[in-house]
């Protein structure tokens, strides 16, 4: 059984013009010990999906349907009080801006102890302090930083504190939404390496969200690429490095200038995303797709599933009609 099974998840934002379908039928699984990435550009629904899983949605957003099963339990059926047993203890969350959301007037020590005591009420304060020290070591922060206030630490160190907090109760799933986007690349590299190392040591799973597909390809085992509220493609890291299959993923990969190989002109993806209040029939990417077929306009995309992943695209409806070379990837 997978640790997390998302099935046909739908999340809407209420708007004056009608429901805005930010997440519209998303399905994926995360295995134990796996780093699963959700990639996509702004507005594709990747963060909304994560917020839905972590129960961070606030009105006007609401889960309109679908299932979120965590270790066999249907999370959407739990009351808020019941979900509290999962929050931090089994599912924790690191947000992009989290490093700026530490309490500015509390020492790091107090904030870590708070996080521990809030969920393990029977813990002795002295034990919590010892645990806080251990957490600091895990993320390579010297213990004396426990006595500091957040403003005395650099952005990268504060983000390490936030990761330490997320680890405090040894959760099975950590959701990370753009955890390094606000940091410089060298700092980012240190934190990414740390996350991989900790994952190996503790075996937790990660739902890693970023718009930075090359970064995702460095860290994730499998990647789901979202477009306009739906998953266009799920692929293993190896599959995607060898060549993505969905035309959107291919376009996305061709939008990142590389540091190696010949310098070639990249074309990006002309056009803009569709209106998610009245989304178009058929494939949502077809207006921007260089390979669009007549049936893309009215039929839901063909879904091909194999051991490399899943791709939703009519190009794969007939294997023999598909010329892989014509849709080559970088």
């Amino acid at each position, binding site marked *: 059984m997978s640790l997390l099974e998302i099935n046909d998840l739908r999340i809407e934002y209420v708007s004056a013009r009608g429901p805005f379908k930010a997440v519209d039928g998303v399905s994926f699984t995360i295995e134990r010990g796996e780093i699963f990435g959700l990639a996509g*550009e702004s507005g594709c629904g990747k963060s909304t999906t994560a917020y839905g899983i972590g129960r961070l949605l606030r009105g006007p957003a609401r889960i309109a349907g679908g299932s979120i099963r965590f270790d066999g339990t249907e999370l959407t059926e739990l009351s808020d009080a019941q979900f509290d047993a999962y929050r931090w203890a089994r599912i924790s969350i690191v947000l992009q801006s989290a490093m700026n959301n530490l309490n500015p007037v509390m020492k790091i020590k107090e904030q870590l102890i708070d996080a521990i005591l809030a969920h393990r009420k029977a813990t002795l304060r002295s034990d919590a302090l010892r645990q806080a020290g251990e957490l600091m070591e895990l993320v390579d*922060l010297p213990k004396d930083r426990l006595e500091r206030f957040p403003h005395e630490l650099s952005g990268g160190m504060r983000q390490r504190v936030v990761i330490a907090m997320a680890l405090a109760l040894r959760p099975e799933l950590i959701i990370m939404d753009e955890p390094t986007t606000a940091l410089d690349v060298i700092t980012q*590299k240190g934190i990414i390496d740390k996350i991989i190392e900790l994952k190996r040591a503790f075996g937790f799973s990660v739902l890693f969200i970023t718009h*930075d597909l090359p970064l995702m390809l460095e860290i994730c085992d499998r990647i789901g690429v979202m477009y306009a509220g739906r998953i266009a493609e799920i692929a293993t890291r190896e599959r995607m490095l060898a060549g993505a299959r969905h035309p959107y993923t291919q376009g996305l990969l061709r939008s990142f200038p590389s*540091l190696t190989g010949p310098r070639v*002109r*990249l074309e990006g993806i*002309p056009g803009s995303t569709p209106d998610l209040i009245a989304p178009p029939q058929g494939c949502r990417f077809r207006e921007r797709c260089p390979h669009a077929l007549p049936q893309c306009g009215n039929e839901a995309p063909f879904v091909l599933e194999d051991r490399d992943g899943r791709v939703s695209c009519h190009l794969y409806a007939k294997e023999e009609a598909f010329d892989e070379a014509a849709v080559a990837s970088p």
Partner: protein
Amino acid sequence: MKPLLQVHNVSQVYESGGLLRKGKVRAVRDVSLVLGEGEVLAVVGESGCGKSTLARMILGLLEPTAGRVEFEGRAVDRRRRGRLETAKRLQMIFQDPFETINSNQRVETVIGRPLQLHGAKGPVRERVLELLGQVGLTPAEDYIDKYPSQLSGGQKQRVMIARALGIGPRVLIADEPTSMLDVSIGIGIMNLMLDLKRDNDLSLLWITHNLGSARYMSDRIVIMFGGQIVESGPTEDVIASPGHPYTRALLHASPDPWRQKTEGEKFDDAEREESGLPESGCRFRNRCPWAREECGQNEIPLTSLDAEREVRCLFPLPSDPASSPLPHEERTVD
């Protein structure tokens, strides 16, 4: 290549602190660079390296504390009467089109007003339509009467480029103009700027934290760290074999899953990151695995690696990276 823009030893010192603790921040330290006609020069560095302060000084928006900027052989001086003339020739594209565009003006005014300020007589609508066409907002009639709120981020940035272009600049200075945009849109903006450069005989100063975009855009590259230039040279050469340890760190930290990975690339840890930059000697030495005692003793000058490359390092990396594995055991500076 004929030099168009010359920056001579500029520095910028900011006063910092309040009543209790006064200090000086030397944001830019003795920076010199040349932008040739028709050239794209990338200035690359992380936040706080001084690259945006440098841009402001080049534009004449900020008076250098020391040094001077020359454009077409004449000093750029914000007090001169000729400032409007300079503004005509040097135009800036800012990072955030959402912030820099006036949301109360229609596209026609956003692009047309500077034309009038710079001497266009009578209606400018025809010229605005033409500019919209040049930046790929076609059919231009569909865009000219819109308000910014009706445009996407990428379209807004194109409007801002058209606005800068209308005045007839020789140099466009772009400070991270794609970082607020989705990548698939950002690459379109980069292509547009390269096309405009080619078709209008422009030069481009491309300021970024992203080595990938610097490689995509530029002929030559300048790497900044701690307010100083630490390395400069032809873009391909610098990226293929960085001479400065900082450039190498930046390169290895930039995500590029297709690159061959070498072992022992770890350059940074939490401790080093926090330990401020030294005021004298090599500013990178606390984070540099190759640092030796000499690195802290004197100011490190920029020295030539070859005819086109300069590096500010006493022990520049050899061009064959395999011969310089990270000497973790030999660390002398902590």
